[in-house]
Structures are given as structure tokens and as C-alpha cells.
């Protein structure tokens, strides 16, 4: 359950984890998407990235996850992406040929836990275990990707449009998960066009453009 978020015992992130981004720039396909972007984020806080389409919200998240190189600037945080960062992007990495149950079992095996079964009800997917992922609706797929956050507790969540395609209860689910994560000392950076109840800070990209 998300109530008791515990991180790797060798490092205690619940204390004073801190993320500092200074003068970041991003270059995509020869185009300068953004530059001179700076922000700080401390443990237990969430940052919402706002901005028009194409202003670089998703690119920034990919940079923070270490999937995209920084064109300029520096990024300081105590996290190793492969162990401490969750990145839920537009492309969910779900396989249409797997059933929901198989997907959860696969994710649980990757996270080295065996708590997958109890998650179905929590995610609002009870009764869907035998359905193929390819037959799920967009919102149901979104719920399924949330399982990753729960199966493998990691201190920094990078969420790209976490509310897209979700119904009212799904949104509440995301907000509850996020609130519990923050209460446990986690950090969240989420790109969203909508206001996020759990966000304590906001950063607007491409304001001048």
C-alpha cells in the first residue's frame, strides 16, 4: 500500500532529498524547445509543469529521467534513475497481447515483489484480470500503469499527463496515491494542463513564446 512508502534502506530519502535544476535547456530535432529553466524541489513536494503543447513539458520529464541528454544546464539530485525514479510517459509500454493479470505479474516480477493480485481492486480493475490489455479502454490502461508506482516504491515520480483519460474516480485514485506518496517524503513532478490538487509548486514553460 502507498501509505507506508519506504525507500531503499541504504539511503533515507524521507529526510532532506532535494532536486535542483539550473539553467536547463532542451534541443529536439535541431529546435531549441526551452532554455534557462531553473527550479528546486524538496522532499514531500510536488511540482506541476504547465505550458502550451510543444513547450517541452514531456521533454523536460524525459531529461529528468535521464532518457534525454541536457543541451545545457545542470541537474543535481541524489537519485539513480534506474532505482529511484518512476517515469510514466505517454507511451505506456503495455503489451496488447498480455492479459491484465499477466501484465501485473510481469511488473511484480520486475519489481521483485509478489503483491500484484491485491492491486487489481485498488486500481479499480477488479474482474478485468483475464481481459487482454489490447481490449482495455484508455483509462483502464492508465490505471494499469499506476501499478508500477505501487509495486516498486521509488522516491521521485515523473508523471506525464497523469489525469488523461481517467474518470472522476480514477482522478481521485491518482490524487490519493500522490498525496500518500508526498506524505511519505516522496517527490512528484507532473506535466498537466489541468490543476493538480496535490501540486505545491507550478512551473510554466514557454511563457514568453
Amino acid at each position, binding site marked *: 500500500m502507498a501509505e507506508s512508502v519506504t525507500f531503499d534502506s541504504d539511503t533515507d530519502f524521507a529526510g532532506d532529498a532535494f532536486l535542483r535544476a539550473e539553467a536547463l535547456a532542451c534541443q529536439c530535432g535541431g529546435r531549441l524547445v526551452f532554455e534557462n529553466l531553473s527550479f528546486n524541489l524538496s522532499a514531500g513536494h510536488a511540482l506541476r509543469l504547465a505550458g502550451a503543447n510543444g513547450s517541452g513539458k514531456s521533454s523536460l520529464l524525459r531529461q529528468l529521467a535521464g532518457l534525454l541528454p541536457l543541451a545545457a544546464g545542470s541537474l543535481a539530485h541524489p537519485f539513480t534513475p*534506474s532505482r529511484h525514479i*518512476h517515469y510514466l510517459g505517454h507511451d505506456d509500454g503495455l*503489451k496488447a497481447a498480455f492479459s491484465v493479470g499477466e501484465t501485473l505479474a510481469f511488473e511484480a516480477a520486475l519489481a521483485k515483489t509478489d503483491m500484484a493480485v491485491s492491486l487489481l481492486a485498488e486500481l479499480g480493475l477488479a474482474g478485468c484480470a483475464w481481459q487482454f490489455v489490447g481490449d482495455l479502454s484508455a483509462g483502464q490502461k492508465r490505471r494499469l500503469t499506476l501499478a508500477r508506482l505501487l509495486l516498486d516504491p521509488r522516491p521521485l515520480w515523473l508523471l506525464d499527463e497523469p489525469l488523461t483519460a481517467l474518470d472522476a474516480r480514477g482522478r481521485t485514485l491518482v490524487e490519493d496515491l500522490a498525496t500518500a506518496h508526498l506524505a511519505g517524503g516522496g517527490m512528484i513532478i507532473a506535466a498537466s494542463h489541468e490543476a493538480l490538487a496535490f501540486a505545491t509548486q507550478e512551473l510554466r514553460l514557454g511563457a514568453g513564446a
Partner: protein
Amino acid sequence: MTLCGAHIRLAWRGGQTVLAVSFLFIAVTLLPFGLGPELKLLRALAPGLLWVVLAISLLTTLDKLFQADFEDGTLDRLRLLPLAFEAALLAKLCGHFLALVLPLILSVPLAGLLLNIDGARLPLLLAAMVCGAPALVMLGGIGAGLAVSVRRGGLLTVLIAMPFYVPVLIFGAAASQAALATGTALWPYLGILAALSAATILLAPFAIAAALRVAQD
């Protein structure tokens, strides 16, 4: 390994295994029509033909290797797993070998019958293929990695991988000829094939990982 098993199940459910094996059989069935029904000729050509057909069947499976994972975000996930990206890729390649290449090799005896191959020497031919096929998978993986960001890059993959297949095919066909002709003098060839496979298993994951990282930027 979880990733390896997932790749096998996906390949099987997507019908890729059946497709690849069918392709091999159709190609082998067509050969006698092209070459004429001369049994002696077929027997003489069989080892080389089987190697070429195996390589081509394998090439047809390559565009599925990373393309889907690249497009649906799975590669991003693999990079954020608590194990080296190279190790994750090696697991996938092992899955590819078990799901697609092993069935191809196992269907070679049956396909060999159609070419009037000498049954007693068949195990030696299979041994040569088992030694050489991992190198084909790894080299093909480099091609697939380099072409991954190109939509419908299947043909490009084949063009990139083909030249690297030449040494494996030369030694593979030589080993098979030696096996079928004498049954001896085969070990040096097997050794070279196994060495090629071992070297590519060690080095290819790094090359593929580098290629995929560049593609994702």
C-alpha cells in the same frame, strides 16, 4: 529471467514463431522446383542452401525485435530498470533466440528431408547451426538497433545485417560440407562458429544499447 519469458510469450502469441518456421519450409519446398529434381544435386547443395534459408528466415524476424518496444515506450522502461540496459537487451535477445531461432533450427531436419539430405550426418549439421546461430541473432540485433527509429525499417535492418552474416555463413556452410562429406574435420569450423557467437554475445549488447540510446534522444 522475466524479460526473456515475456519476449517468448509475445513472439508466440503474435504468431511470429509459426510465421518464421512456415517461411523456412516454404523456401525449402520451392528450392527443388528451381533447381530441378536431381537428387544428387540437391544432396550436394543441401547444407549451403539450408544455411542460407536459415539466415534469411532469421532476417525476416528482425524488424520485430525492437520496433514495437521502441514505439510503445518499453525501451524507456528497460532503461529505468534496476539492471544494466545491456543486460535487459541480452535477455530480450535470448528470448528471441529461444522463441524464433531454436524452432527454426529444429525444423531444419524435416526441411533437410525435402532436399534429400543424408540423415546420419544431420546431427552434425544441427550442431554447426546451434554454434553459429547465436552470432546471427546478435549481429542481426545490431542491425535492428540501428534501424529502429526508421519507420518500416525492416529492409534497412536486413541491409545492415547482411554483410555481417557473410563470415558466419562461410564457416557454417564449410562446417556443414565437411560434416556431410566426411563426418570429420569438422571441429575447427565448429570452434570458429562458437567463437564468433561468444564474441558477439559479449559485444553486441553494448553496440545495440548504444544504438538504441541514440535513437531515443
